[in-house]
């Protein structure tokens, strides 16, 4: 009987083998992580061709730079860092449409700290109305126009489900900076959805 370790070597072992030039270890890491890297790239770029290029670049970089990986962080954290940077480069290199101004898309408050506008509850709409094709587009467009740094935080934290600490390590930011960037991005996205739902209600 083979043990689990023999059939499924851990990342650390594969990394050591790759450092010694073992191509089978590279293939094993590729098979283990290509789906994750692609999904991250796709969620960041929302473009299949860009996502494919990012995934290629990431694994070429893994092969080339594995010697720089010192094992202090988990391999997956290092890989996410390489992947996030590659996706961010792709986004920054894009001739840009307008970015959503995170500062402008904020809830409004009166000087005394009360909400300046009525706040409707659209959270309990039936599921099919909550995420209809149209609504999906509104949200996708809003995410699309987030500034790249904010988008990275939203994708890693809210879509990939990584912890704030992990996201901070991946992006080389402080936990506080990640939290505040995430909160402001969510507020901007919520504001977009609210504007959409309220306009719909006004028309109805």
């Amino acid at each position, binding site marked *: 009987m083979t043990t689990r370790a023999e059939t499924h070597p851990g990342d650390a072992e594969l990394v050591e083998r790759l450092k010694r030039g073992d191509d089978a270890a590279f293939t094993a890491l590729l098979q283990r992580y*290509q789906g994750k890297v692609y999904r991250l790239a796709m969620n960041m770029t929302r473009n299949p061709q860009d996502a494919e290029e990012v995934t290629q670049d990431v694994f*070429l970089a893994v092969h080339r730079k594995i010697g720089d990986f010192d094992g202090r962080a988990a391999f997956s954290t290092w890989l996410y860092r390489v992947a996030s940077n590659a996706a961010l480069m792709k986004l920054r290199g894009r001739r840009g449409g307008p970015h959503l101004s995170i500062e402008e898309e904020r809830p409004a*408050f009166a000087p005394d700290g009360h909400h300046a506008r009525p*706040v409707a509850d659209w959270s309990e709409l039936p599921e099919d109305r909550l995420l209809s094709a149209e609504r999906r587009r509104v949200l996708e467009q809003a995410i699309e126009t987030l500034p790249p740094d904010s988008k990275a935080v939203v994708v890693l934290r809210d879509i990939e489900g990584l912890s704030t600490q992990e996201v901070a390590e991946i992006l080389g930011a402080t936990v506080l900076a990640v939290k505040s960037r995430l909160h402001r991005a969510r507020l901007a996205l919520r504001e977009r959805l609210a504007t959409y739902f309220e306009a719909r209600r006004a028309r109805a």
Partner: protein
Amino acid sequence: MMSCKELVNLMADYLEGQLDPGVARDLDQHLADCPPCLNFLKTYRVTTRLIREIACEDIPPELEERLQKFLRERLERAPGQ
């Protein structure tokens, strides 16, 4: 007394259960008396859920194959690069 603005700024930590118990109690109290903040909280929470739900799907199998072929060829051409 916590203001609506303060409450909105604490919302992410509140939803993750990361507030000090005393602050969380103040926030609960505010929510109990403030329908706009309750609506805001619910729509903030559902926004994060919708973000997750529009996530892109998994890598297509044909792309996995293409990727492995591309990398094999590139790495064979430039071993050790």
